[in-house]
């Protein structure tokens, strides 16, 4: 059978050519050559050629030489659009000032909206590097008391689930861990590994570019340990050499054979930090391993998230019955991987961000619509003439939309530049890896194109409707544009809408700003300023605990000997590390804590750590060097723990506390009470904390309080580490504040963006308001002139103009505050230190808007008061 030309291309061609024999002959020519090409080059190439030919004919007839086609009626719509656009370009060029204002407004709004979209795009659309994110699920552990607080599943439980669950296939576990990588003849390096059991690569569809991935059998307890490199570290550490495959490397003391290299698309969000994916032995039936792991798998065919949840819940109940003391109250939460990203608040945050960005776009469009409407007043005569000449209402409407299109196209280019600049600014302010994934690519460009396509309809609707209501005869007769009643009302409605939306955004933005400042003002409970951190994996240095403690102390002393520094050691950095809560039980003599289980964060410290971090000691004594060396059964508790369980700090001293669960449980005597140290995400509130002696150092988190020169401290740290533990690389050498900033970076960017969005909205509302007040002053010059002539004082005129602006504000405030309260209530969970309906906040929003209104109307008001009576009467 003869191949046929592409149907859509034929349709395009048919619209472009005249509807007569000549037009048909053009189609005939092209069809003939299509047939020739099919025979010569094959149908695929011929169809492609046909598209090009059809497009060329359409392009030329519609845009380049439309006049040549005017004598035939059929292709009309296209040719008229071209004409409309050319006319619109002329109109736009005739008023460069106004055009610049409109394009700048829309560019800014498109830029803002695009940045909001880029964030959402990264979180929701691009998502995880998972082949089938709807089938992939992540399993968390939650407690009955805190169903929103997701934590890892116990490793032993995960292995049980993996063996028994039917509704989830390829159940695998993974944990991220720091490790020391050693290769013969090279300096050891500290890397992040991901330790994997099960067929994680299969469940997520991770692909290798070289060798193989981790497989289901790699986790068998006797199997040789294997590792898969990520693309980035394969390039950095192995120079992208294929010889890396088969090489044996030592990962934290254990030999692993490199069997593959992943493709770069895995390096997403926190996965970007991982250097090596290694197999982890999965021993079933051994002693309970209560270390938390992230669990993931793939829904079996026919299974749903609900059915999988139900099955795992039953399994979890069995486990709870078998191990009541360790598993009490533990439940499971199954989430689709596509929904699991970014924590429980991410949807709320993203909705807010996108909502705010969308509002900015709407406000800008309303603003521009107001400007165009004002302009259409002065163009009434032109429209009247066009209609009288037979353009018809649709003709005028089309022309206005074409003008909007030209403006929006310019704004799209400006918006792209604005979004790119905004993202560069964000990347400059926050260097967090996750934020660097937010980029402008074809998703964002398509988004901008879509926005630019919708905007003309938004901005041209009001002026077009107003133009269509035009009274032809009256306009042509008088020839003098006046502020018609309908026009005036339409513009007022637009300004009120802008004010209401801006008020709404300002309510949200001010709550966010209050939250941000409350978070900054809230004390962490220790002083991170001038503190430098570094980590040494001393478990890599020697297996002997006494020797490790010795090394730890020597390093501290060596650094302090460099002068004016104090050094402490911990097992984890409080406030910034993701700290895990441990079960505690208070002795029988003390009041029972509310609820069945009490948890506390447990941190191991040496005798200098609290002093170095400046954590205050409220009662009792601290941890001494001897406590560390003898592994004394003592502990310090935080004020919050003492308050909750003993009533007051002093009452806690001398009491006993069981820390941990199962075999790891240890009863400790409380010897001191410290102030509270808070997590940087302070909305969690004060969490009870227990400090215990760091008697079994593994990876030691050092803190160094410097006299003020971090560079000198860094040199001293490196020298000390090199002298005493040369086989262990120094990791995470940075100011404490840097780690805090990294944890809060994402939040700060979100907050900053919301605040910036509301500022932009407020600015647009102010210019919109200024526009309408200035215009109405212009139109009422004669009236003001007369009033002044009749004896009105300057004060009266100014009051009249400003009063008009404030009447608009009052209506806008009524709607805006109502909307703002609704939005604020929805974001309640994100607020800290301020309530949604905080009266001070609402009053300051009202005050701010009043100031903006005053500023926007003052200049026109003064101009109105200075109207020259004679001149204004003469000119009318």
């Amino acid at each position: 059978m003869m191949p046929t030309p592409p149907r859509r291309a034929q349709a395009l061609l048919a619209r472009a050519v005249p509807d007569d024999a000549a037009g048909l002959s053009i189609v005939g020519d092209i069809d003939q050559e299509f047939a020739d090409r099919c025979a010569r080059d094959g149908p695929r190439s011929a169809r492609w050629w046909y598209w090009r030919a059809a497009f060329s004919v359409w392009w030329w007839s519609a845009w380049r030489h439309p006049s040549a086609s005017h004598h035939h009626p059929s292709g009309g719509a296209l040719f008229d659009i071209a004409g409309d656009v050319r006319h619109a370009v002329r109109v736009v060029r005739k008023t460069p000032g106004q055009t610049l204002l409109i394009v700048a407004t829309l560019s800014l709004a498109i830029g803002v909206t695009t940045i909001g979209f880029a964030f959402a795009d990264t979180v929701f659309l691009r998502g995880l590097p998972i082949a089938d994110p709807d089938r992939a699920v992540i399993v968390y552990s939650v407690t009955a008391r805190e169903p929103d607080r997701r934590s890892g599943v116990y490793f032993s439980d995960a292995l049980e689930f993996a063996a028994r669950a039917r509704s989830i296939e390829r159940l695998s576990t993974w944990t991220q861990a720091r490790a020391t990588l050693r290769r013969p003849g090279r300096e050891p390096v500290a890397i992040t590994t991901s330790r994997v059991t099960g067929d994680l690569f299969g469940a997520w569809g991770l692909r290798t570019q070289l060798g193989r991935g981790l497989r289901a059998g790699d986790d068998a307890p006797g199997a040789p340990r294997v590792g898969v490199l990520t693309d980035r570290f394969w390039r950095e550490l192995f120079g992208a050499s294929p010889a890396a495959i088969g090489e044996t490397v030592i990962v934290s003391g254990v030999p692993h054979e490199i069997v593959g290299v992943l493709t770069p698309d895995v390096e997403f969000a926190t996965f970007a930090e991982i250097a090596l994916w290694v197999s982890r032995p999965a021993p079933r039936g051994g002693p309970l391993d209560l270390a938390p792991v992230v669990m993931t798998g793939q829904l079996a065919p026919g299974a749903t998230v609900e059915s999988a949840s139900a099955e795992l819940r039953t399994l979890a109940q069995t486990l709870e019955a078998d191990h009541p003391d360790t598993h009490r109250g533990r439940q499971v939460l199954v989430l689709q991987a596509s929904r699991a990203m970014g924590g429980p608040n991410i949807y709320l945050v993203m909705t807010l961000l996108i909502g705010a960005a969308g509002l900015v776009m709407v406000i800008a469009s309303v603003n521009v619509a107001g400007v165009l409407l004002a302009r259409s007043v002065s163009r009434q005569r032109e429209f009247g003439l066009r209609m009288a000449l037979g353009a018809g209402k649709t003709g005028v409407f089309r022309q206005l939309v074409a003008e909007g299109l030209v403006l929006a196209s310019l704004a799209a280019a400006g918006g792209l530049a604005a979004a790119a600049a905004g993202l560069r600014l964000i990347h400059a302010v926050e260097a967090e890896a996750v934020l660097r994934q937010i980029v402008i690519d074809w998703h964002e460009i398509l988004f901008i194109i879509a926005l630019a396509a919708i905007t003309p309809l938004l901005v041209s609707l009001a002026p077009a409707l107003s133009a269509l209501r035009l009274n032809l005869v009256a306009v042509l007769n008088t020839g003098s544009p006046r502020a018609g009643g309908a026009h005036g009302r339409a513009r007022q409605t637009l300004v009120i809408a802008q004010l209401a939306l801006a008020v709404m955004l300002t309510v949200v933005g001010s709550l966010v700003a209050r939250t941000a400042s409350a978070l900054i003002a809230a004390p962490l409970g220790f002083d991170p300023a001038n503190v430098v951190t570094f980590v040494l994996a001393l478990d890599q240095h020697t297996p002997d605990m006494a020797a490790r403690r010795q090394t730890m102390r020597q390093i501290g002393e060596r650094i302090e000997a460099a002068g004016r520094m104090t050094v402490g050691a911990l097992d984890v950095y409080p406030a910034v590390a993701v700290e895990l809560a441990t079960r505690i039980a208070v002795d029988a003599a003390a009041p029972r804590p509310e609820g069945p289980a009490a948890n506390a964060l447990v941190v191991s410290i040496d005798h200098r750590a609290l002093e170095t971090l400046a954590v205050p000691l409220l009662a009792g004594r601290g941890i001494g060097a001897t406590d560390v060396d003898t592994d004394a059964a003592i502990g310090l508790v935080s004020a919050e723990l003492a308050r909750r369980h003993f009533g007051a700090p002093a009452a806690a001293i001398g009491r006993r506390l069981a820390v941990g669960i199962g075999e790891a449980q240890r009863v400790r005597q409380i010897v001191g009470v410290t102030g509270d140290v808070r997590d940087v995400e302070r909305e969690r509130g004060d969490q009870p904390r227990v400090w215990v002696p760091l008697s079994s150092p593994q990876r030691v988190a050092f803190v160094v309080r410097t006299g003020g020169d971090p560079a000198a401290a860094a040199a001293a740290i490196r020298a000390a580490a090199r002298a005493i533990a040369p086989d262990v690389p120094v990791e995470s050498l940075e100011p404490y504040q840097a780690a805090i900033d990294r944890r809060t970076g994402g939040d700060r960017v979100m907050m900053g963006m919301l605040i910036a969005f509301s500022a932009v909205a407020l600015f647009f509302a102010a210019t919109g308001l200024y526009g309408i007040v200035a215009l109405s002053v212009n139109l009422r010059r004669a009236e003001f002139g007369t009033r002044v002539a009749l004896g009105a004082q300057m004060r009266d005129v100014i009051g009249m103009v400003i009063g008009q602006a404030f009447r608009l504000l009052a209506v806008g405030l009524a709607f805006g505050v109502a909307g703002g309260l609704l939005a604020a209530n929805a974001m309640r969970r994100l607020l800290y230190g301020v309530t949604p309906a905080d009266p001070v906040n609402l009053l300051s929003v009202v005050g701010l808007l009043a100031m903006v209104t005053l500023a926007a109307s003052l200049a026109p008001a003064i101009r109105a008061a200075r109207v020259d009576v004679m001149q204004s009467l003469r000119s009318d």
Partner: protein
Amino acid sequence: MGRFQLGEFEQRVLLAILRCGDDPPAADVRRALERVLERDVSRGAFYTTLERLESKGLLTWKIRRLTGGGELPERTLDVTRDGMTALRDARRAMLGLWRGLEPLFDKGSK
């Protein structure tokens, strides 16, 4: 100055029609043009130019049904008397401008 202003491409199209013999089909003319100019000739530009020349009265066309059984017609082109005049004027103008300048170009660069 003649009555008709001819663009360069219009001139080329008219000349190509004349070179192709009596009443050549449009498609042949375009191919001839591509051969002589040694470049692709955009269909859009070509058909638009035909329309413009026709509206100026410099060429006419006839519609001929294809004999090969195709359902779409073919268009044959012919240069009108005005078209010939326009070409003659253009040629005269061009030759006038060239006259005396040949040595500059024949000998290559000075």
